[in-house]
C-alpha cells in the first residue's frame, strides 16, 4: 500500500502553480503575446492609421491633428527635436521607431460622418495593414470607429471626443481616450461659475441634439443644480442648425439669467454669435448681469467666434500657453515646424500616438491585448497635463482640467483664451459605475486574427 502524499488533484494544482510562476516574467514581454494578431508587422516598418476629418465642418481641426501626427511620427523615428519624448516620464521610447520598426502612416478622411469614418478605418486596417487607428473630431464618429476597431481587433486611440459615452456606455476594451469628457468639464467649471456668478442663478440650455450634446448638458445641469442653480429650460437644437436666432430670441423672456451653450464647432460659433447679436450680454435679468457659458472650448472655434468669446467661461483639455516642460517642448516643436501654436486637438492626438508607441515598447509587442494591458492603469507625466492615469476599468485618462475664459485683450490671433484655473484631477474624478457612465461593458480585448 502506497503511503505517498501525491494525489491527482494535488499534482494538477502544483503543475498549474509552477506553470504560472514560470510564465509570470514573460507576461510583460513579447513572448506572451507571440500568438498571431491582426496586422502583425513582419517587415522593418509598422503602419499607423490616422483617421481625421480632412473634409467637412471639422476639416481645420483634422488638419491640425494631422500635423501633430506627422510630428509624432517624426519624433518616434528620431527626427526633429524629439518634442515631448524628452519630457515624457516613461523612457521606453528611443527615437528608433517602435520596437525597432520605422513608423509609417496612412491617413483616412472621416468627413465627420460615422459611416465614412468606419469605411476609411476599415480600408486602413484591411488594405494598408494599419495596426492601430487613431483620430476623430466628433464623439459620434469616435464611438462608431471604436466599435469597428473592437470588432477588427486593432487598438483605437481616440482623438477629440468629449461625450461621456465614449468611455461610458459605449466603452470598448480596444479603445482608449486621452481627451477629457463632459462630466469633467462640468465638474471643473461649476466651482468657478459659483465663485463668479453666485449660487442664485437660473440657466437656460441650448443643446446640440446628439450624443455629445446630451451628455454634456446632463453633466453641466447636474453640476450647476448641485450648487443651487435652477434650470429654466433645455432646448435641443438639430446639429444642422445654422441660424440660432429662433432659439436665442426666447431666452430673455424665460426668466433665465445664464445661457449655457452645449454646442461645439460651427454650432458654437453660430449660437454664440446669435446670442451676442441679440445683446444678451448687455442685459440684466433678475437684477443680475446676463451671462453666457460655453462648457467645451476650442481655440480654433474661438477664432471663428471672434470677439464674441471675450469674457466667456468654458473648459479645455489643454492650451498652448501652459508653462510645464511638456507643453513648452510640444509648442516649440510644433510652432517651429508649422509657424503657429498647436490646438488641443493636435495635443491630444500627439499624446495618443506617443502613449501607444510607449505601450508597445513596454509590452514588447504590437499585439492589441499586450498594448491594452500596458496602457491599463498606466501612470505618466510630462505630456502637458501633469500626472495622468489611464484608468484600467474604462480606459479613460484622468488628469487636471483647464477652466478658461475668452481673453479680453488678446495680444495675437492665437491668444484667444486665458487659463483661469487648473482644476486638479481629484475634483473631476468619478466612480466607474457613476450613473452618467453606466450601462456599458468594456468587454475583453480582441487581438483580431
Amino acid at each position: 500500500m502506497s503511503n505517498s502524499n501525491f494525489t491527482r488533484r494535488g499534482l494538477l494544482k502544483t503543475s498549474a502553480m509552477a506553470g504560472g510562476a514560470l510564465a509570470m516574467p514573460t507576461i510583460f514581454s513579447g513572448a506572451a503575446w507571440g500568438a498571431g494578431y491582426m496586422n502583425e508587422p513582419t517587415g522593418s516598418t509598422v503602419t499607423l492609421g490616422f483617421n481625421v476629418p480632412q473634409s467637412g465642418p471639422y476639416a481645420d481641426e483634422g488638419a491640425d491633428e494631422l500635423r501633430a501626427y506627422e510630428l509624432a511620427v517624426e519624433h518616434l523615428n528620431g527626427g526633429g527635436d524629439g518634442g515631448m519624448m524628452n519630457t515624457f516620464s516613461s523612457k521606453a521610447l528611443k527615437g528608433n521607431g517602435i520596437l525597432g520598426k520605422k513608423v509609417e502612416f496612412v491617413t483616412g478622411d472621416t468627413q465627420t460622418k460615422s459611416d465614412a469614418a468606419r469605411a476609411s478605418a476599415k480600408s486602413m486596417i484591411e488594405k494598408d495593414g494599419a495596426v492601430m487607428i487613431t483620430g476623430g473630431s466628433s464623439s459620434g464618429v469616435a464611438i462608431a470607429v471604436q466599435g469597428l476597431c473592437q470588432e477588427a481587433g486593432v487598438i483605437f486611440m481616440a482623438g477629440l471626443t468629449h461625450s461621456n459615452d465614449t468611455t461610458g456606455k459605449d466603452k470598448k476594451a480596444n479603445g482608449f481616450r486621452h481627451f477629457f469628457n463632459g462630466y469633467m468639464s462640468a465638474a471643473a467649471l461649476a466651482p468657478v461659475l459659483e465663485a463668479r456668478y453666485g449660487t442664485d442663478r437660473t440657466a437656460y440650455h441650448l443643446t446640440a441634439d446628439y450624443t455629445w450634446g446630451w451628455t454634456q448638458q446632463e453633466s453641466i445641469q447636474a453640476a450647476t443644480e448641485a450648487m443651487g442653480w435652477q434650470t429654466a429650460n433645455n432646448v435641443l437644437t438639430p446639429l444642422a442648425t445654422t441660424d440660432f436666432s429662433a432659439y436665442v430670441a426666447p431666452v430673455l423672456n424665460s426668466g433665465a439669467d445664464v445661457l449655457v451653450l452645449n454646442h461645439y464647432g460651427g454650432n458654437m460659433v453660430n449660437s454664440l454669435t446669435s446670442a451676442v447679436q441679440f445683446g444678451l450680454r448687455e442685459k440684466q435679468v433678475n437684477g443680475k448681469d446676463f451671462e453666457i457659458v460655453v462648457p467645451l472650448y476650442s481655440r480654433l472655434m474661438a477664432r471663428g467666434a471672434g470677439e464674441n468669446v471675450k469674457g466667456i467661461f468654458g473648459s479645455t483639455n489643454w492650451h498652448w500657453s501652459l508653462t510645464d516642460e511638456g507643453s513648452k517642448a510640444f509648442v516649440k516643436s510644433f510652432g517651429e515646424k508649422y509657424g503657429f501654436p498647436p490646438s488641443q486637438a493636435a495635443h491630444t492626438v500627439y499624446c495618443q500616438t506617443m502613449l501607444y508607441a510607449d505601450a508597445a515598447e513596454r509590452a514588447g509587442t504590437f499585439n492589441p491585448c499586450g498594448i491594452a494591458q500596458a496602457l491599463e492603469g498606466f501612470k505618466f507625466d510630462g505630456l502637458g497635463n501633469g500626472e495622468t492615469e489611464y484608468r484600467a476599468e474604462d480606459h479613460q485618462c484622468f488628469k487636471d482640467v483647464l477652466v478658461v475664459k475668452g481673453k479680453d485683450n488678446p495680444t495675437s490671433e492665437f491668444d484667444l483664451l486665458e487659463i483661469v484655473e487648473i482644476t486638479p484631477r481629484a475634483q473631476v474624478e468619478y466612480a466607474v459605475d457613476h450613473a452618467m457612465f453606466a450601462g456599458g461593458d468594456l468587454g475583453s480585448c480582441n487581438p483580431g486574427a
Partner: protein
Amino acid sequence: MDVILLQLLNGLDKGSAYALIALGLTLIFGTLGVVNFAHGALFMLGAFCAVTVQRLLSISFETIDPDKVDFLGNPAKVKTPYVESWFGPEMGGAIVDWSVPIAILFAIPIMIAIGFIMERGLIKHFYKRPHADQILVTFGLAIVIQEVIKQFYGANPIPTPAPDAFKGSFDFGVLLGFDPNAVIYPYWRLVYFGFAAIVIAAVFAFLQFTTFGMVVRAGMADRETVGLLGINIDKRFTIMFGIAAAVAGLAGVMYAPINSPNYHMGMDFLVLSFVVVVVGGMGSLPGAVLAGFMLGILESFSSMNVIKSIVPGIDQIIIYLVAIIILLVRPRGLMGRKGVMED
C-alpha cells in the same frame, strides 16, 4: 404677445434671406429655363466677398516690438493695417470696421462677372439638355466652388462683424409698451431686412419700369416671338443671370455678420430656397418673395418652445409639410403660371 412679435421679426429676417435667394433662382429659371443648383454657392461667394474685402482692408505690415514676445518667446511682430498708416488710426480703423458695407460695392461687379462666366462658360451648353442634366452639372459646379473656397479660406467659420454702429439690439418692447427686454432684435438683422426689401423692390422696378425689363418679361412669356422680332433675347438673359448672381451675392454679403461665413453655407440655404421657389410657383417672381417670407415666418413660429412641446421636431419639417400641403392643393404653387415645367 411679445413672444409672437419676436418670432414674427425672426421670420421676416429669415424670410428675407430665403426670398433673396429664391428671387435669383426664379429669375434664372424664368429667363433661361435652367434649374440652377449652384445658386446657393453664389450666396456663399457673396459672403466670402465680404470676408475678402475685410482681409484686403486688413492687410498689414509687420514691425518688431522688442517689448513683447510671441508664443515661442521670440520678439513679437506687431501688425498694423496699411489703411491705418495711410489714413491715420481713427479713419483707417473706421474703414476696416465698415468692411461689410464696403464689400457691397466690391461684390456687385464681381458677382455679375461670376454670373457671366458661369452662364457663358458652362450653363449655356446645357440649355437644350434635360433638367436632370442641368441639375447634375450645376450641383457639381456648386461642390467645386465650395471646395475651392475651402482650399483658400479653410473649413471653419470666419468672423465678419458688422460695423460697431450696428452692434447691439433694438428694444421694441419699450416702444410698444411691453416690458423692457421683452422684444429685442439685433440692429444688423433689422438692417438685413430693410436691405432685402430694397433689393427686392429694385429688381421688381427694374423689370417693371425699364425697357430692358419689359423685353426680359416678354422673353419670359414667349421667348420665340421676342426672338422673331429681331431682339437678341439670349444676350439679355445672360445679363439677367448676372443680375441674379448679384442678388444672391448681395444677400450673402449682408448675411456675413449674422452667421460667420463658411464654405458650406450655400448648401444650407439651397434646398430651402428651392422649396420656396416651388411653393411660390416655378417662374413666379412675386410668388418666390411671398413664399420666402411666408415660410420664414412659419419656420420661426414652429421653433417656439410651446409649439415644439406639442409637436416635437415640427421646426425641422414645417417647411416641407407646408410645401406638400400647398402642392396638393395648388399644384402650380401659390402664384405659379400654367405651362411652366408642365410640358
